């Protein structure tokens, strides 16, 4: 398990592109929004939580088709499946690696981007917190989507169609945390619900991913 995690991380860093690309995408989306809606700071502050959360979500989605696809193409996925490691652990490890290389950097970078969009003081901190709590769920759900579509040509587009509706509860609670914090309300209740969604997802999703992988490796 640790070996797998190390391998994934080393691959992500050395393969180039994949690691920083999500972050760069997040940056570009955030920078583009003011061109679309205009430079008024009040408007930007109002929509900042939603824009940042949607941006993070899309950045997460961007790297999902690389979770299983390279291993599938060069056959190492079969090797991993026949190793003593259960498929559930494989799926969990892949999700964790995906989170460490996309979700975590996004959460750390988000407050800076929040400044660009004029997100008010406590909002940035809560944004980081909500992303740190919510993005593991995005990675786990995304890994499930990647497991479903691993053998398919043009899997990437289908992947987003399958995965995005599943992101609704996470996005909803996550953005609500930030909106409430920026508006001076109590952000804890949605944060707790967000954590609940994340924990349930982390507990259940590796099994669904493993089931899908088993079918695809048949």
């Amino acid at each position: 398990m640790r070996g797998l995690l190390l391998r994934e991380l080393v691959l992500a860093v050395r393969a180039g592109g994949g690691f920083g690309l999500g972050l760069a995408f997040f940056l570009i989306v955030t920078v583009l929004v003011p061109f679309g809606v205009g430079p008024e700071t009040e408007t930007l502050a109002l929509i900042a939580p939603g824009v940042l959360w949607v941006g993070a979500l899309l950045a997460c989605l961007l790297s999902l088709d690389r979770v299983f696809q390279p291993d599938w193409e060069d056959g190492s996925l079969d090797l991993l499946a026949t190793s003593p490691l259960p498929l559930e652990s494989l799926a969990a490890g892949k999700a964790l690696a995906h989170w460490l290389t996309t979700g975590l950097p996004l959460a750390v970078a988000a407050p800076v981007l929040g400044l660009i969009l004029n997100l008010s003081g406590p909002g940035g901190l809560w944004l980081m917190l909500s992303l740190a709590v919510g993005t593991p769920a995005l990675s786990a759900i995304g890994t499930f989507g990647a497991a479903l579509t691993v053998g398919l040509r043009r899997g990437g587009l289908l992947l987003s169609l399958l995965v995005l509706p599943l992101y609704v509860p996470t996005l909803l609670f996550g953005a609500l945390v930030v909106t409430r914090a920026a508006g001076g309300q109590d952000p804890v209740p949605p944060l707790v619900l967000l954590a609940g969604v994340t924990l349930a997802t982390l507990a259940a999703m590796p099994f669904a991913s493993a089931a899908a992988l088993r079918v695809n490796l048949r």
Partner: protein
Amino acid sequence: MALSAVLLPWVSAMAAMCLALGLVWGFFFTPDDFRQGATVKIIYLHVPAALMAVNAWLMMLVTSLIWIIRRHHVSALAAKAAAPVGLVFTMIALFTGAVWGQPMWGTWWAWEPRLTAFLILFLFYLGYMALWNAIDLPDSAADLTSVLCLVGSVFALISRYALIFWNQGLHQGATLSLDAEQNIADVYWYPLIICIAGFGFLFLALVLYRTRTEIQARRLKALIARDRAV
């Protein structure tokens, strides 16, 4: 196949009868509502369609479970057959809702829990059907879509309650509930119940018909494969 062949005409006839009776009764022989006027009559399409849109997904969930547990092929095909029907019912519910919402709420669309939940259901149907179409091997497709259906059901439920937390609704409370003392007035209630029954039969008829088509398509494929092998 033999049973469904016998059932299909009867179910179709029941659907046609109930729909004709319920809709004509509802549209032409009920009084206008004193506040909503004639627009209240959209209820005879809106409520049954919405009800069946949710029930179609429920049926897919059950048939997916049967496929996963018992590997019954017809079950997987029935789930596949139900998806487009459910999608169309969802579209009918959304469309009639928009047409009704425009005069009543002053807007075609509001980000309101029930509307949004149906939009998400619509997306789930789309993803489910896209996954069926994308996979070539029929058994793998059945397996993967079943897993997606299970996961999707859980997330659809979570989304439903998350949306209630997110925004207050414009919808009125439940019109028909078994434990309420005062439901909708009887003049509207009888045609509505008949319409709901009609949509139920319509759904059943369409799913039976589509499942039969799927079975025949699969038999045909098997025959062709056997011919090639010989």
